[in-house]
């Protein structure tokens, strides 16, 4: 049995992106069945460096864009209706990923210890880059 690997990309294969984090993203039970279109989080690049933050719920992850040691191809299994034949089609290539390896930082406000003589000012909770 032979499965041909086809590629109609021509010169350049469309480049896909990977955002990779340790652990899993939990979806609130209410939304389990209708994940589609649901926002997961916000990806930010705070400076000109290739460092990134990813804010999911009240967690903030810090990571970086890294070049993959070896490229990965995105393959799609195609079953032709007219024949038994199965083919694999190259539909994309991945050369970089945004990898988050750190422990998430919880974005919750912490009360500041009171300072004598000064008015107690509540600490502003850390906010994501975009409202």
């Amino acid at each position, binding site marked *: 049995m032979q499965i041909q690997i086809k590629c109609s990309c021509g010169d350049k294969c469309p480049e896909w992106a990977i*955002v990779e984090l340790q652990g899993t993203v939990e979806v609130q039970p209410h939304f389990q069945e209708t994940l589609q279109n649901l926002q997961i989080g916000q990806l930010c690049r705070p400076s000109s460096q290739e460092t990134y933050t990813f804010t999911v719920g009240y967690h903030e992850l810090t990571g970086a864009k890294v070049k993959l040691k070896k490229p990965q191809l995105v393959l799609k299994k195609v079953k032709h209706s007219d024949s038994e034949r199965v083919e694999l089609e190259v539909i994309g290539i991945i050369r970089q990923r945004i990898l988050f390896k750190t422990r998430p930082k919880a974005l919750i406000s912490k009360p500041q210890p009171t300072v004598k003589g000064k008015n107690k000012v509540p600490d502003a909770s850390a906010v994501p880059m975009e409202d």
Partner: protein
Amino acid sequence: MEQPNPNPGCRGAEAVLNLGSSSSIPISYHPLFGSHDDIMLLELDEKLLPDILNQRVVVRGQPDEDAVLCTQSKTYAIKFVGNSNSIFLIPPSDQSDFPDTIVDPNEKDPNPQAVASVIKVAPGNMELVEVAPRLDKLKILLLENPYRSEEDTEMDLEMTERGLYKWNHLVDRVQASDDELRSGLQALSAVEINGYWRVVDEKYMDMMLRMLLHNSVLNDWSLEELGQDKVVDVLKSDGFPCKLAEHCLYVYGQKLSGGTGTSCMWKLDEKRVCVHFAREILRGGRKKMDNFMEEWKRKIPEGMEASLEMLEGEVLTEKLGVDSWVRPFSVSSLPSEPAKRFSMLFKERSKWEWNDLHPYIKDLTVPGLSSDGLLLKYTRRTQPTPTSEPVFCAR
């Protein structure tokens, strides 16, 4: 507080990969997010990319076998590597398989929202490991129906074509690249007859060789300069088909340079001819060394010299009492997969000295493993005294 995004409306993978400084983008589940089991990731060396992108790569294997990926000349095992991380796969915004917007021509939004959508969370990726071609199956297939003399006169083609394999049948069943498959056929001395790849029965080859030698003597031909058309003619007149006659020259001789087509000249290969006769003599089992050598010298053609070194990898010699015995044990009858090969060798003999062992393992190839590495992996090496020969036994 809204941060400026240099590319308003930029979506998909390109938005993530080109995210500018002091910018941000929401990451969402794609409208078509799902398990998409038909989408998989394959990690490979940069150097293999041109082959895949130019469609020169194919996956081979039967449903009950582990799949391999073949380029023109190499074979790779395909392994799945799981990853406990969450790998969010984001396609480019114009990926036709996964349109992320439903474009309504009446409602053209001049500023489509910037978002990068995740189509799937990948459980891991596949990777390639170069392996030796799995050619033992080729031998098994071709040995199902070796070409025998009965077929010379077989009229009913349909009868004879059952259980036979053409090239396209072989690539369907053998897990090897095209180049490796061709080498495998050559190593088996296979011949293509009527489009079917065949190995020829040993008795048949023996008959043809003897006829060739007999006629060489009759016609006073030099075995170092045999005319192809003369040889084929004489074999044809004895009932051998042209294709088989040519194959006889190919198996036992070497083409001399110069000359084209049927006017080629051939020289018989002394080693191949002598080995053939040795195998014939030992067909009945082991023989005493003295008797064997005497019979062997008698049977080989005039002008050829037989020596025991020629039979490395073909016979084993043993001392039983005062006598030396020789018995057939051909490396060509052993499996090509290293673990199986060593298992057979140690079944035959529990201890091997290097000089005896080497001819039976020198053809083993495992990409990434040297011959020392092979020994280390499959044998235990002992050396009774510092000056004696090392001895190898099973691990």
